């Protein structure tokens, strides 16, 4: 059914928290996403002209890079973009066949590839570009939050997280229940001021983004004269340095 499940207080809302402060734009999450999902629930994820000019394909996660701000305050921010598993996903309600649905038990937004007619309306309805047509199979595909990993009893429990989260080398991606205010991800969002993308669209994304941390002020230059403990060869002086630094 493409009608949305009723929103109950304390409802489980599985999603991702993406830390734009620590993301280094290495593309590992996008690569592992493609790798896992091309043989999982949504398999295969097609690639067209993979070995020649014009190579393209379906990706559930794409990492953009942006410049924000001017001058010394300006910075480069790497920005992974994937399905936000919104609480008000118009991609689901516009679906004419019921192939798109939001799961009541955990809030994951999925597509039934056996009933999708490939009309593409859901991709139009998503402000975030999270849905991509598999033009080979003629059906819409999207991030499943690795539903075939997070509930998979055949893999060790600590690995039951989305592929993008498991592979991130800087732990910029966190997975958990954003409906539970006491969960680690919810605490992280509170502490770091996590925010929604395009809140003005009213889709109420579940996934949150953590802003880049404020940079130390430009005036605070490193103290150039101060020797580090490694610079002091004499053990007595090193001990004195340690005592005096306390």
């Amino acid at each position, binding site marked *: 059914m*493409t009608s949305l499940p009723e929103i109950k207080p304390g409802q489980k809302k599985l999603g991702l928290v993406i830390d734009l402060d620590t993301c280094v734009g290495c593309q590992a999450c*996008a690569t592992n996403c493609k790798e896992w999902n091309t043989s999982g629930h949504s398999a295969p994820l097609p690639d067209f002209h993979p070995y020649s000019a014009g190579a393209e394909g379906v*990706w559930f996660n794409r990492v953009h890079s942006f410049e924000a701000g001017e001058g010394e305050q300006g910075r480069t921010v790497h920005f992974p973009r994937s399905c936000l598993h919104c609480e008000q996903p118009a991609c689901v309600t516009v679906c004419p*066949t019921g192939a798109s649905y939001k799961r009541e038990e955990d809030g994951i937004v999925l597509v039934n590839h056996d009933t999708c*007619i490939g*009309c593409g*309306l859901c991709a139009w309805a998503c*402000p975030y570009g999270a849905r991509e047509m598999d*033009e080979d199979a003629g059906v819409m595909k999207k991030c499943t939050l690795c539903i075939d990993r997070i509930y998979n009893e055949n893999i060790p429990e600590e690995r039951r997280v989305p592929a993008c989260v498991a592979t991130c080398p800087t732990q910029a991606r966190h997975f958990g229940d954003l409906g539970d205010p006491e969960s680690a991800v919810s605490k992280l969002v509170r502490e770091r001021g996590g925010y929604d993308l395009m809140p003005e669209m009213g889709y109420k994304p579940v996934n949150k*983004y953590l802003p880049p941390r404020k940079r130390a002020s430009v005036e605070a230059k490193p103290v150039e004269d101060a020797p580090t403990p490694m610079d002091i060869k004499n053990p007595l002086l090193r001990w004195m340095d340690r005592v005096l630094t306390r």
Partner: protein
Amino acid sequence: MNPAGSIVFFTTASGAGYGLLFWLGLLRIFGLVPADARFGLVSLGVAMLLITMGLLSSLAHLGHPERAWRAVSQWRSSWLSREGVAALLTYLPAVLFGIGLLGGIPALAVPMGLLAAAGAVATVYSTGMIYASLKPIRQWHHPLVVPGYLVLAAFSGAVLLAMLGAFWGDGAVPAVLALLTGAGGVLLKTAYWRGIDTAPPEATAESATGLGRIGKVRPLDPPHTQTNYLLREMGFRIARKHAAKLRRIALAAGFGLPMLLALVALLTGGPAATALLTLGAILALCGLLVERWLMFAEATHTVTLYYTGT
């Protein structure tokens, strides 16, 4: 947005068909079009042909046309589904309307003609709502989009009925309606274009990334060097360069000339009127094809904020 040929043809052809069905069902009752049963049947046939060709063309847009029957199931939430239901249900009174005309049974033809007219309005309204309900596309999520679909269908239907009526010796009332709805269309389209040209974008690169807190946001590197489905479908921008010219073509060919021809036909009458109204109908449909194409080509989707910043 990518103007898929199948959808542009669908909205133009089916729109005209439903407009024709609407006016036929309504005007026949008041004797404002030729009462000849053959006129009614031919007009109904043209309407149903346009509608059916348009609907079949829209199926070509699907990745799985053979599953299209599933699309009638989600009418509770989906305007596309409602459009499908309304389109299919309209066939029922339309066919009975035809039987009523064929058998000369006014007791059947009159109510079924009215029901078919109502079905036509419901279908075109649903079509408009498919687009108007899409928030990420600000040029579609606009209060004048649904009225636009309705007025354009009414105008193209009136133009067609005027032409068909002229063949039976009297296309005056539909020609007057074509003038009125055409004028409405011109006013509506110019107001709509002014609206989308001056309205500020709802979302920005700053809100799309949330990085506005740092400052102005500029895309630096795209995720991939090559294009993708999102950019082909949502990032279409060839037409914007020619938008002003295409708008003038749509206004002149789609509305201006057909209205002028209808006016001259009203004044002259006779066989000349038939020729003028036929030419007007052809011009109107061609102009509306341009207008419908432009409606897609001019529309922008928020996903391009991530790629181009605009």
